[in-house]
Structure formats: structure tokens, C-alpha cells
């Protein structure tokens, strides 16, 4: 596969975006969907072939997977040495990511054919979808840290456009604004992190950046680690800030508030963006810079604890949500917490690299079953026209395929053995067990919670009360909606058996893994317990969930209210930033700085008013001024002037 054809992978969606963007509304609105899906199909095929070729033909050099720079030309040349350039870099995680992104995006494209049929801005929807896929692929394939920042911003904007697709709903507009501003705030940290890292290593390219900042002897590493700002070395500052950028995009703890609101967008969008691709960008970024992270323990501990806390925090909230898409959003946040802390506990190379491999493996499997869950939820909402659990129930007869695929996905995410989730979650728990006991127990408890809230969701949608949904004909949706569900379900089952361990590792060497049955007994048992608890509470209509909720009292309402994080942010932005900084700034500008200028104007007017008093029209005043003047001159010239 020649290098230029690799460049085709991101460029095809870009081409569709331009075509649909410019001519979509008027001319191509009828078959916009077809164009989008076909171009993405080609892009998926190319990426599969590239991945295959990289992994099994050209990638491995004497046993180690080497990053290959496929394409590179200088985009912005400051001085002969310093330049920002655009390029494509192939390496194990990039290959895995392009496969995941293109595949899931294809599924979503097919699903949207049916789901978005009636929409009046159908073409713009597909334009924005392909813009998103382009920027995500660009992000994954970028060869230097500046280029990844550029596509990072583009991903942010396309998510803004997609969340705000139903722009006549004020809540959608507010949600898209919130998403963009929170991620933008995190990107600021990312930008400053880039500047610190790039300046201390005097390069932007990933390969040289990692090489220079990872061997202790290099002058770059020495002064980076040496130069400290408030006690923390510049290197740690850079890494933590870069992680901050990643946390923003992956909705980790402090920056997670935009994810639940992002559910305002169409469900296929949530399936693509908020399940499989955009939210894992943060994990991908940390994985990309993992060798430097591994070198700096402080940064890694931050990653671990933020990841672990987010996982637990999100799992608790997910148990109390009533809107099915918000449950799935929090479950995404929790699973990404898993990936983050598994990267956190990993070491560079050898046996320590298990965490890194496990995180990538979980990312791989999670993409499939989480997008399946979202698409399933989309089909349900399409039928029921409401997101709330209480409007659903007993839909298993009405929607057989969705029911089965949803069940498979729930089993997968809960970590029940044959399914994909079990394998990747085991690796993560194993890695956590080896390096950080406390995180291991948190992970164990969260996996139990995951099983509980997933099956709570499953039972309340498909079981609990008899469905009162009137049969309105289109039932489970067209074929284009059912096909992706089935394909994703197949992957959710068999993704576990993919040999990720031998392909994607932190140091490129294959890592042989074995399933330690004894060890994995406890998590599976916990998962089964969670499922049984959920079925007892939610399988049939009963008052038990309500009674538990009242007993838990404060904790339940707090969790239901997302621990008042939104109110906190509202307080910070509106009360503090708008009132304490914005208003005074505007006031100062209007009164003080502007006032100063007006003051000059008024004083001159005042002076001129007084001066004109002299011209009073009174003859005798003039005469006396004249007389006094003459007198003064007489005195001056006679006595003083000699």
C-alpha cells in the first residue's frame, strides 16, 4: 500500500465533507447518506489493508514494531531548524485506532441511513459526520505533537457541530457550547503542555521528542527535569498539562460535565463520538506519549488516580440515572477511567507493559460493545420517542434483534467470560493487581457496579412492565438499522480473541498473556452477583428499587443529581467568571478607561466655558483690563527690565 493511499484514509471523509458541505443542501440531499457511507467504506477497506500490511508484513523489524513515517512535508517553516510539519506516522496503536475509528464510523453511517431518514438537514448531518471522521483519523495518524493539537481542535469543533445538530432546541445549543468550552479549556492546558515539552526537547516530532526526553543522559532531559516551577519539574508540568488536555477530551473527573449533556445530539452521533472515538482520544494521547509518561512517576500517579476515581465516580452516578443515554454516557466515562488507570499502572516495556497492552485491548473491545449499546438505545428511542426508562419496558417482543444484541453487549461490558469485555477487563485487573492494590480493589468494586447498572438498564428497557407502546408500524426500524447491530454484536463476542497482546505493546515486543482462571474467578463472581441483584430489583415491576432509594436517602439524591457538579460549574462560570471578572472588566472599560477619555473632553469644554466669560460685552471691564495691562507693562519695562 503506497504512502499516498494511506493519506487517502483521512482525505476521503474530508472530500465528502467538502462535497456535502458545499452542494449538500440543494443538490445532493437525497443521496447524501449513500455518498458518505460509500466513501467511508472505501476508507475502512484501505485502513484494514494498511493495518494488515503493517502488522503482518512491513511493521515488524527484527521482532519490534517500529513507527514508520509514511509521509512528511513541512507546513510552516520558521527557521531552517524549527518548523511545524504535517505527516503520517504508522505505529501499532495508530493502526488499531484507524481500524476501530473507520469501522465504528461505518456502522454509524449505515445506522444513520435509517435513523435520520426524515431529517431536513440530512446532508449537513453527513457532512459533519465525515468532518468528524476526517479529524479523528488525522489525529490518530499525526506524526508530530503540533499536528495532533490541530486535529484535536478540529475534533472538538466537529463534536460541537454534531451535538448542536438539533440547533432549534436551546438545550442542544447549550450542550454543544458547554462541550466545546470545557474541552477548549482542557485544550489550553494541552497547548501549554506542548509548548513546554516542545521547547525543552527543541522538537515537535514524536519520535525525536520521545527519544530526547526518555534517555536520562540527554541534555534536553536534564534541563527539562531540572528546571522547576513552584517545585515541580518542567517535564512533569508538561506531562500533567498534556494529560489535562487528554482528560478534557476523555471526560475524566474534573472535565466530565459535558459528556452527559452531549447526549442532546442524535444517538448515532453519541454512538460514534461519545462511545468509540473522541472520548478515547485522551487515552490515545497518553498512550502516544507513554514512554515519556512512564519515565515520570509523578505524572503517572496523577493519571492513575484520576482514572480510578473517574471510574468509581461515574459508576455510582450511572446507577441512579433514569435517562438511558445518560446511563450509557456515565458508563463510557467509567470504562475510560479503566483505560486511563490501566495506563497509569503500566511500566515501559517487558512485563510491566501489561497495563499499556490491557488498556489498548480494552479500548479496542469497548469501542464495539459501547457503540452497539448506543445504537441499540437509539433504536429503542426511535421506537419509543423518549429517553426515560419509565416510558419503556417489555420491549423484547417488539424488538427481538435489538433485544438480543443489547443483551450480548451488556454481557460483554459486564465482563462475563466468553464475551470480549471479560478478556480486556481481566488484563486490566491483573495489571492493577500487580502494581497498585488500592486501585485494584476500586476496579473490582466498579466492575461489580458496572454489571449492576448495565443490567438495571437492560431489565428496565426490555423486561419490567408490559410494553404499552402502540404498534406504529415501523417497529424496530429498517434493515440499515438492524444490520450494524448484528455486526457489532458479532464483534462484541469475538473481539476478545483478537491477538492484541502480540500486536500492540508499549515496546513493540509481543507479550504472551495467559488467562489465570483462579484470579479471574472473583471479578466474574462479582459481575454475576451484580446481574442477579439487578434482575431481582428490576426484572418485574416492584417497589424494591424505590425502597432502596429512600433508605440510601442523601447519597441516592446526590448521585442522581450527578453530585451537583453541574451546579458547581454553573456557579464558577456565572457567579465568579461572569460577575466577578466579566462585569467589572466591562464596567471598568466603560467607566474608568472610557471615562478617562471623556474626562479629558469634559475638562477642555469646562476650560473653554470659563475662558469665554472674559468676553463679557461690558465695555468698562475691557477698559479696566486694558488699563491694568498698560500699568503692568509700564512697571515691567521701567523697573524690572534692566
Amino acid at each position, binding site marked *: 500500500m503506497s504512502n499516498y493511499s494511506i493519506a487517502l484514509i483521512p482525505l476521503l471523509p474530508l472530500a465528502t465533507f467538502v462535497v456535502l458541505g458545499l452542494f449538500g443542501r440543494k443538490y445532493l440531499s437525497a443521496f447524501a447518506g449513500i455518498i458518505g457511507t460509500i466513501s467511508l467504506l472505501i476508507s475502512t477497506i484501505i485502513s484494514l489493508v494498511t493495518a494488515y500490511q503493517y502488522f503482518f508484513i512491513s511493521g515488524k523489524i527484527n521482532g519490534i514494531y517500529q513507527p514508520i513515517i509514511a509521509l512528511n512535508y513541512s*507546513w510552516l*517553516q520558521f527557521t531552517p531548524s*524549527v518548523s511545524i510539519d504535517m505527516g503520517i506516522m504508522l505505529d501499532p496503536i495508530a493502526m488499531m485506532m484507524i481500524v476501530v475509528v473507520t469501522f465504528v464510523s461505518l456502522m454509524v453511517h449505515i445506522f444513520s441511513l435509517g435513523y435520520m431518514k426524515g431529517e431536513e438537514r440530512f446532508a449537513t448531518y453527513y457532512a459533519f459526520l465525515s468532518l468528524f471522521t476526517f479529524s479523528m483519523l488525522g489525529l490518530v495518524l499525526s506524526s508530530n505533537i503540533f499536528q495532533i493539537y490541530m486535529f484535536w481542535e478540529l475534533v472538538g469543533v466537529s463534536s460541537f457541530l454534531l451535538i448542536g445538530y438539533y440547533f*432549534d432546541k436551546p438545550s442542544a445549543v447549550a450542550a454543544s457550547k458547554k462541550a466545546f468550552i470545557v474541552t*477548549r479549556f482542557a485544550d*489550553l492546558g494541552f497547548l501549554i503542555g506542548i*509548548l513546554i515539552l516542545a521547547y525543552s526537547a527543541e522538537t515537535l516530532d514524536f519520535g525525536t521528542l520521545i527519544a530526547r526526553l526518555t534517555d536520562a543522559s540527554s541534555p534536553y532531559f536534564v534541563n527539562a527535569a531540572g528546571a522547576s516551577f513552584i517545585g515541580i519539574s518542567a517535564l512533569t508540568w508538561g506531562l500533567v498539562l498534556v494529560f489535562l488536555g487528554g482528560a478534557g477530551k476523555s471526560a475524566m473527573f474534573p472535565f466530565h460535565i459535558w459528556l452527559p449533556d452531549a447526549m442532546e445530539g442524535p444517538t448515532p452521533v453519541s454512538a460514534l463520538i461519545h462511545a468509540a472515538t473522541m472520548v478515547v482520544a485522551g487515552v490515545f494521547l497518553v498512550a502516544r506519549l507513554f514512554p515519556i509518561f512512564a519515565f515520570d512517576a509523578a505524572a503517572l500517579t496523577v493519571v492513575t488516580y484520576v482514572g480510578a476515581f473517574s471510574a468509581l465516580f461515574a459508576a455510582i452516578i450511572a446507577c441512579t440515572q433514569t435517562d438511558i443515554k445518560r446511563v450509557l454516557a456515565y458508563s463510557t466515562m467509567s470504562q475510560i477511567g479503566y483505560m486511563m488507570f490501566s495506563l497509569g499502572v503500566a511500566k515501559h516495556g517487558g512485563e510491566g507493559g501489561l497495563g499499556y497492552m490491557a488498556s489498548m485491548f480494552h479500548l479496542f473491545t469497548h469501542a464495539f460493545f459501547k457503540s452497539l449499546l448506543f445504537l441499540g438505545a437509539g433504536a429503542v428511542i426511535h421506537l419509543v420517542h423518549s429517553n426515560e426508562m419509565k416510558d419503556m419496558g417489555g420491549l423484547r417482543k417488539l424488538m427481538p434483534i435489538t433485544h438480543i444484541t443489547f443483551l450480548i453487549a451488556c454481557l460483554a461490558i459486564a465482563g462475563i467470560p466468553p464475551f470480549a469485555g471479560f478478556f480486556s477487563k481481566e488484563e486490566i485487573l491483573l495489571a492493577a493487581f500487580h502494581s497498585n492494590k488500592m486501585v485494584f480493589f476500586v476496579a473490582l468494586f466498579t466492575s461489580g457496579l458496572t454489571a449492576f447498572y448495565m443490567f438495571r438498564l437492560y431489565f428496565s428497557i426490555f423486561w419490567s412492565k408490559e410494553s404499552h407502546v402502540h404498534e406504529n408500524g415501523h417497529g424496530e426500524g429498517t434493515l440499515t438499522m438492524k444490520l450494524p447491530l448484528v455486526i457489532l454484536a458479532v464483534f462484541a463476542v469475538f473481539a476478545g480473541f483478537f491477538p492484541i497482546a502480540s500486536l500492540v505493546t508499549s515496546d513493540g515486543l509481543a507479550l504472551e498473556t495467559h488467562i489465570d482462571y483462579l484470579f479471574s474467578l472473583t471479578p466474574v463472581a462479582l459481575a454475576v452477583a451484580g446481574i442477579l441483584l439487578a434482575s431481582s430489583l428490576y426484572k418485574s415491576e416492584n417497589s424494591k428499587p424505590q425502597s432502596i432509594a429512600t433508605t440510601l436517602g442523601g447519597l441516592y439524591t446526590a448521585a442522581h443529581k450527578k453530585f451537583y457538579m453541574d451546579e458547581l460549574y454553573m456557579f464558577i462560570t456565572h457567579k465568579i467568571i461572569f460577575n466577578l471578572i*466579566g462585569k467589572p472588566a466591562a464596567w471598568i*472599560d466603560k467607566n474608568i*478607561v472610557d471615562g478617562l477619555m471623556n474626562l479629558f473632553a469634559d475638562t477642555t469644554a469646562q476650560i473653554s466655558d470659563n475662558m469665554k466669560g472674559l468676553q463679557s460685552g461690558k465695555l468698562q471691564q475691557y477698559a479696566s483690563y486694558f488699563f491694568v495691562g498698560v500699568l503692568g507693562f509700564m512697571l515691567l519695562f521701567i523697573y524690572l527690565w534692566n
Partner: protein
Amino acid sequence: MTNLSILVIFPLLTTFAILFCRNVTQIKWTALIGSLLQLTIASLLMYSYYGERAAGNTAQMLFEARYSWYSAMNIEYYVGVDGISVIMIMLTAFVVTCGILISWKIETLTKEFFFLLLLLSVGAYGFFISLDLFTMFFFLELAVIPKFLLIAIWGSGKKEYSAMKLALMLMGGSALVLIGLLATYFNTDMGGGVHTWDLLKIAHMHIPYETQLFIFPFLFVGFGVFTALFPFHTWVPDGHSSAPTAASMFLAGISMKLGGYGCLRVATYLMPEAAQHYSWIIVLLATIAIIYGAFATLMQKDLKYINAYSSVSHCGFILLGIGMLTKTALIGAVMQMVSHGLMTALFFGAIGMIYERTHTRQIKELGGLLKTIPFLSSVFIIAGLCSLGLPGFSGFVSEMVVFVGAWQQPDAFHRIATILAAASIVVTAVYILRAAGSAIMGPIKNEHFNHLKDATWNEKMASVLLIFAILSIGLAPFWLINIISPDTQIIMENIARGAIGN
């Protein structure tokens, strides 16, 4: 394209041609054709400039021409052009053409309107090509006076007040500049008591350190007033929001760049030691302007005020770039001038077009325009995204170059200033999205917005022209950098020589 003065004479001819037109359509078409031809001349100039540079002509200034105006004071009409001025001329040509295209519906006194607008452009062209300080000042003044009339007659809101304020503050600024230029003039001696106004000769002449310390503030603050230097920026919000669309496009797009170009070419280039000495004040004021301007914009309710305050914040980047005194930062400053010029022209154009249809600029009253006038709303959104620094548009490129350049100053003060300036991209995102969110997206608040007419051919052409320019810088900025960097190199050599000097 040897004779540069065509750039000044041709618009003058168009202005006179307008005087002889009879009805409104003739006026509009002569103005448009005149500005389009001017655009072709400007691109011809750039093309031949490229050719000249490719042919290895390394002289600092090309296409020089010199006629003596007033030999007693040694004042000459000395014109020449280098990379930076070629770019600024292209920018002026673009913005003026789009300004004329957008002001197609001016009914009252159209002849005078276009006459004054083109007179302004003559001032701007002259300013960018002149190398004699006196001629530069002459064209600077020419570019100030018609603004007052444009705002006072065709403006909206409290137009007399803002026209007066704008004119007085700009006049104040140019007065400071005049003092600075005179002081420089009298401090140059070509032997035998003869002084010179020639920019290049003065650059090689070493003005003593103390006099530099005295003259530099006058020049920098004088030109700074044009580029909304912090305490003197109050004319920007009032002036821009009361001006008619084409005038505010010219005002924000070009006349704020006159100041930036002046600061770079006259203040920093001629007095490097003083620039070094005062650089911390410039950086401080620029950072305040950026942060302060951004936060002040948060509170604005009127679209034009938002764009005016955001121009204050974006022009802060220009001064930040100049204040940092590193090669990349200077390149960033020039790129920011060009990119901000285009983007604010597009933004003001979009706001003007929306105002023409909905007759209100209050965010509260606007809503759901995306449904009724999709083309205009997408132009507005593109302008908004460009100004908040989305990659692919020129805003991102120039801001990043300024940040990278600013980051090369290792000491803590400059680092904090850069971080604060970088923090402004978040605040910019907030106010742009608040404006776009409530004005363009969201439900339709006012029922008669339902049947608004979308963009006519001239508005479409203007927006496409500007968007093409923004994209050409955003997607492939190397052509812009290659044309600018040799000149910033020369300025940097002067600063380096200055640093050794004192």
C-alpha cells in the same frame, strides 16, 4: 510592475471617476470595477515581487522610486516595497473590495460614501508603500480624516459621539507620531547639519541611546493608539459599532494594522535599543489588552460591540508579538495582522448583512437565523470559528506562531504573559459561542425572521473572497511565511546590532 505609485494613483482616479457618475448604479459599478482592478494590480505586484525574490534580488526594498517633494527639509516621495508591505497591500485590496461589495445598498449620498471609502484606501496604500517618514505620516493622516465623515453621516447609534471620539483619539495618536517623527528627523545628521526622513538611512544610523529612550514612547504610543494599545483602546468599541459596515470593515481590517505596521517598521526597526528597553511594558500592556478585551467582550449584548472588543483582544496579539522581539514572534505579529484583518472584515460583513435584514444587533432579539438565512449564518459561524482559532483558518495559524515565538523568551515574566495570552483563546471561545449560540442557533424568537431573504450575489461574492483568503492562509501558510520572514530577519539583525550597541 516597476512603478509603485500606480497603487496610489489608480484609486485616486477611481475616486474622481466616481465624482462624474450620475446615478447610483454607475457609482457602485465604477467603485467595484476600480477596486477589482486595484486587486489585480496588487496581486500583479505580489507576483512580480515573488519573481524578483526568486530571481535572487536580495535588496531590502524593491521597486524603489524617489521624487523630491521639498528639498529644503530633504522630504522626498520615496516609495519601495518589501515582503510585509506587499502582504499588507494585498490585505487592503481584499478588504476594500469586499467592503464595496457589501455596501451595495447604501441609498443616502452614495457618491460621497464611495468617494470617502476609496480615499481611505488611498491613504492606506500610500502608507504601506512609503519609505520616507514624512510621506508615511502624510498618508497616515489621509487615512484618518474620511473616517470621521463616514461614521458621522452613515453611522448608526450615537454616531456623532463615536465619530468625534474616534477622530480625536486617532488625531491624538498621529500627533504623538508627528512629534516622534520630528524628533527622529532632527536626530539624524547626514553630515553638515543636513537631516533626512529616509527610513533605511536612519535604520543604519545609530541614534544615541538616550534620545531613543525619549523618542520611542512617542512613536510606539502614537501608533499604538491605532492598534488599540491598552489604555487608548476606548475608541474601538464605540467607533466600530457606530460605523457603517464597509467603514467598520476598513477600520478594523486595515486602519488598526496601520498602527501595527507603524510600530514594527518605524518604532521597533529604527530604535532597537529602546524597543529592547521598553519591551516589558509593551508585553504587559498587550497581555492586559488581550485578557481585558476578552473578558469585557463577555458582557457585551450587541454583536458589533462583541466584534469590536474582540478586535481589541486580537490586536493585543500583534503588540504581544512585537513586544517579544524574537524572529518567530515578529512573523506571528505580521501574520496576526493579516489574518485578523481578513477575519474581522468577514465578521463585520456578516454582522452588517444580518443587521440589514433583521435591523437589530442585540443577541437577545436574534435567534434561529440558521434556518431562515443559512448562507449568511454559516458565514457568521465561519467568521466566529476563525476568530476563536480553529485550525484550518488563519486565526489559528497566526496565534500559534505568536505563542511559539513568545515562548522562545525563556524568562518567567514572558512565560506568564504567554500563558495568560493563551488563556484568552478559552474566553474567546466562550464569547463567540455565546454570540453564535443565541444569535444564530436556537429557536426563532421574532416571527418576521421567518421570511428573510438570503445573501444576494454581491454579499456572496464578498464572503467567498474573504473566506478564500482566510483558508489560503489557514490551510497552507508557508507562502505567507516565506514572503515575510526575510524582512523580519532584517529587523532582527537591527535589534541584535542594537543589543550589542548599548
